[in-house]
């Protein structure tokens, strides 16, 4: 770690979780601050510089959502990762609409958490993208000026809506875009409930850009919440994981997994 340690503020009312998170994160080169309440976190943010906030949604007091609202009012660009429970889809969506960068579902692994923290952190420090600059992620290249998309140098023919969706996702790669935000961006506010439209188009898009549409690596689904386009880091991790998986799964007969 030659770059400065990422300063993480953990906001969770459960001491057990803070205790479990601190040692591995410190060990892996993060600098940790803790708060047990939203109010405490807001106070601490005034006095202490922080790079990423890990914010639990369900807390006594003002709660995670309200804390997020106040953080956003004071620091619009500070990366905030929400910690939610599996069945809290509405809260996830609400937090994302309020400007949370991402969310992570309990119980999560440290590896997953670190990846999310790094992604959120990287995004803030990435150079500001020029509006019409080409976006290149993995083998996919999108040129806004020409509205063209290529994969491994081969042009991919997209309809107007497909392109709009892809642009919306790729320009915010790594982040979840909620269904309603995508629908609003592409079809307009009247269609923000029509998730089925989106599913149909995403299916078509996957057929065009993914090698294996039923097992996508670029265009990922966040169940009940939205879609995200993998960023370079996620692609790399994904490749590593599948390489590791391929090694460990070698004994499986070759005719297995016919889906």
């Amino acid at each position, binding site marked *: 770690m030659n770059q400065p340690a990422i300063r993480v503020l953990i906001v969770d009312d*459960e001491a*057990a*979780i803070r*205790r*479990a*998170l601190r*040692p*591995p*994160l410190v*060990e*892996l080169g993060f600098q940790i601050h803790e708060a047990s309440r939203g109010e405490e976190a807001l106070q601490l943010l005034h006095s202490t510089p922080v790079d990423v906030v890990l914010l639990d949604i369900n807390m006594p007091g003002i709660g995670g959502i309200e804390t997020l609202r106040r953080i956003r009012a004071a620091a619009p660009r500070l990366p905030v990762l929400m910690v939610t*429970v*599996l*069945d809290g889809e509405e809260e996830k969506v609400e937090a994302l609409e309020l400007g949370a960068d991402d969310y992570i579902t*309990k*119980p*999560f*692994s*440290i*590896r997953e*958490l*670190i990846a999310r923290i790094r992604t959120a952190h990287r995004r803030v420090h990435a150079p500001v993208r020029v509006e019409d600059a080409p976006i290149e992620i993995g083998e996919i290249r999108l040129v806004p000026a020409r509205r063209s998309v290529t994969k491994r140098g081969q042009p991919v023919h997209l309809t107007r809506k497909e392109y709009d969706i892809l642009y919306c996702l790729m320009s915010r790669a790594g982040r979840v875009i909620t269904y309603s935000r995508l629908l609003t961006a592409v079809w307009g506010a009247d269609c923000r409930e029509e*998730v*089925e*439209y989106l*599913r*149909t188009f995403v*299916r078509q898009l996957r057929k065009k850009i993914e090698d294996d549409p*039923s*097992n996508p690596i670029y265009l990922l*689904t966040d*169940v*009940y919440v939205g879609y995200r386009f993998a960023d370079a880091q996620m692609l790399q991790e994904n490749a590593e994981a599948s390489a590791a998986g391929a090694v460990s*799964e070698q004994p*499986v*007969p070759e*005719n*297995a*997994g*016919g*889906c």
Partner: protein
Amino acid sequence: MGASRLSGTYIPLRTMLGTRRPRGSGSRALLFTLESALGIVAVVFVGLLAHWFRWLLPVSVLLSLLVVVPTALLCGFWQAVVVSLSAVAVQSYVTARQANYNLAADPANSVTLLAFVLTALLVSRLSARVTEHAKEAESWGGQMHDLYEFTRRTLQMNLHVEPGSQLAELVHEIFALEAVVLFDADLHETYQAGFWNEDPQELAQNVYYFETSDDDSATGISRRVVRLGTVPIGSLVLRGETSPLTNNAIASLIAITFDRYRAFANESRIETERRTEQLRATVLDSLAHAYKTPLTAIRAASTGLSEMGKLSAAQAELVSLIDEQAGQLSDLTARLLKTARLDAGEVSVNAHPHSVRPIIEDVVASLSERLASMRVAIEVPDEDLVLTCDRQLMVMLLTQYIDNACKYSIFNTTVTIRAVQLNAEVIFSVHSIGPVIPMADRERIFDRYYRSSNASNRAPGTGIGLAVAKRAALIHGGYVWVTSEEDQGTTFYAAIPAPAQKRKVQ
């Protein structure tokens, strides 16, 4: 054993009926004698008047008639016969005592007597009949009134408690009976009111078991099998004065009240069950939430340990075991939570038209890890098949079915997932080759916490998955079933109502 005991108790009932006979007829004979005696006294008094006042003699026959007719009206025909015969005797005697009246010399006298007897008998007969009718009508009116009162009271009855004893008391009180006993076969309870010198329980149960409905006028005991439609549901034994028709009506009203009680109890039971279910769901829900925090801490700690990467191989192995098991606990908690929500009816159906194939594909993709050792075939003959449903619930249903197929199917066989439109339904099916589900289990397999005895040691599971699937289908107004044959494998089905029209999503 029960049968022999019952036949044993049948005999005392008979003997008891035998011993009761004399009491009723004795009092009736006494009354008859008394009424006849009064009539005779009146007739003799008329004779004496005729004897003392000569001028009354020609009308003494008419005066006697004045005695006979009221007797017939008030007491009855046979009393009137006795009185009129006595009148003839008295008349003959008085006439014979008159010096200036010669029986043989005055033939008109015998004709008068004969006419008197005939008139008396005729009038007696008529008046007795009128009286009888009047009495009957009066008694009918009274019984109708009683029945009406009984109906009214049974309708107002408190059905929160068993109605048997209330009914017995009511019948006893309203119809002014000596004793009542009522048997409720469903609850196997007898209820009595009034005094029985016989064991009323046996009495009532015998009526039920031998299905004897009769009226014994000699003993005043009436027995009725209480039936709902044609099904016997109890019995009723009454002692006292009622008509057979009234007894039938009482038995019918009792049957209806029993039935109302059952319906009421059933309704309250369902309501109670619903509340228990809700409470259970709430408890489950809070439990599942309470588990989340420790699970998160365990997971973070174990994955943290392996991320820090200073573990020996053995330590790493143990840490990954902790992580894996925490993951399983977490899955289980999530599933419990889902069932709890479904059971509590807290799930709102968010129905929209969805293409069927992508739903299936999504579920298969999400289970790809589990399906790694299986072959999967998706068969949706109609690519554009659209179903209006709650996507989340359908995903849950299919996940459970496919997950179940994974658990119980033989390694490296094919799991086939089909969806076809059949009339007004879309039928989903998940077919796999595995152990046959015993016939007895096929219904109950969809019940919560039920696990087939056949497979209880074979696969991990909570026994809630299929209950979730069933609930998800029911919420859509659909239904689920399973077929399982040795040579054809096991297929789980879910039929979801869908009007037979297709709409392509634009």
